[in-house]
């Protein structure tokens, strides 16, 4: 397994771990952090492919992902704060009445 293959495998595994965390954990904040882990996996694959091909486009996309992650956290944390203020819990099952 050469370096590029290894890095792509790590990025896929990080994405899978993040997805697994979003599905199986019940804490809202932990789910948010697992989403960040998914973004990090995508970043790693973008950087390794950009490095392989020598083009800067992948690095530009990584920067845009940084911005999207910052914006996501800036909006998600106030929403979590409000949810907790309403029900005093971080558990996702408590919010199952939000559907629809």
């Amino acid at each position, binding site marked *: 397994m050469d*370096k*590029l293959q290894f890095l792509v495998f790590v990025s896929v595994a990080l994405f*899978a771990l993040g997805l697994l965390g979003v599905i*199986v954990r019940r804490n809202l904040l932990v789910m948010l*952090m697992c989403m*960040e882990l998914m973004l990090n996996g995508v970043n790693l694959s973008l950087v390794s492919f950009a490095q392989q091909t020598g*083009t800067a486009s992948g*690095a*530009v996309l990584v920067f845009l992902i940084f911005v999207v992650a910052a914006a996501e956290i800036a909006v998600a944390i106030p929403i979590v704060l409000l949810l907790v203020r309403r029900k005093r819990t971080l558990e996702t099952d408590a919010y199952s009445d939000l559907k629809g």
Partner: protein
Amino acid sequence: MEALLQNLDTLLVYVFGVAALVAGALMIVLRHPMQVAMALISAMVFLGGVYGLLGVHFIAAFQVLIYVGAVMVFMVYAIMLLDVRDKSYTQRFSRFLVLGIAGAVIFVGVLVYGFAHGQHASARASVSFGLQQFASAFLNEYWLHFELTSVLLVAAVVAAMAVIRGSKRHG
């Protein structure tokens, strides 16, 4: 000596990659959100090390500055603010545990199978690009995306304020 240094570079990439994977796995297992945040921060720092070893030093710096320095500090503050002891502390996993693990195993398994049996593009020697090339590409070709990014950030700030204000009106 030169060959040893090059090998050391590759070896460190492998070590940091495995360490990032271990930290990611710890995120699933650990109980308290603060421990999960620390595992995520270490995963991000390890990935920053990988970026630095690949030669994209500016992305490594921004990984540490933006992700660890801004996003995760914000997250850690939120965790400290919301120290709610509820059922999600004693029972870590939801009822989708078996389903989720099976799905993740299948996902990774299919991709590993693809790696093992697919056709590989021949791995070329990695071409390095510097900050100058990145900066000129960023501000010549992708200037529109750069400007749209600022619009997105302003929209996020306005949205965060609107969420708080809207909740005050209703609550």
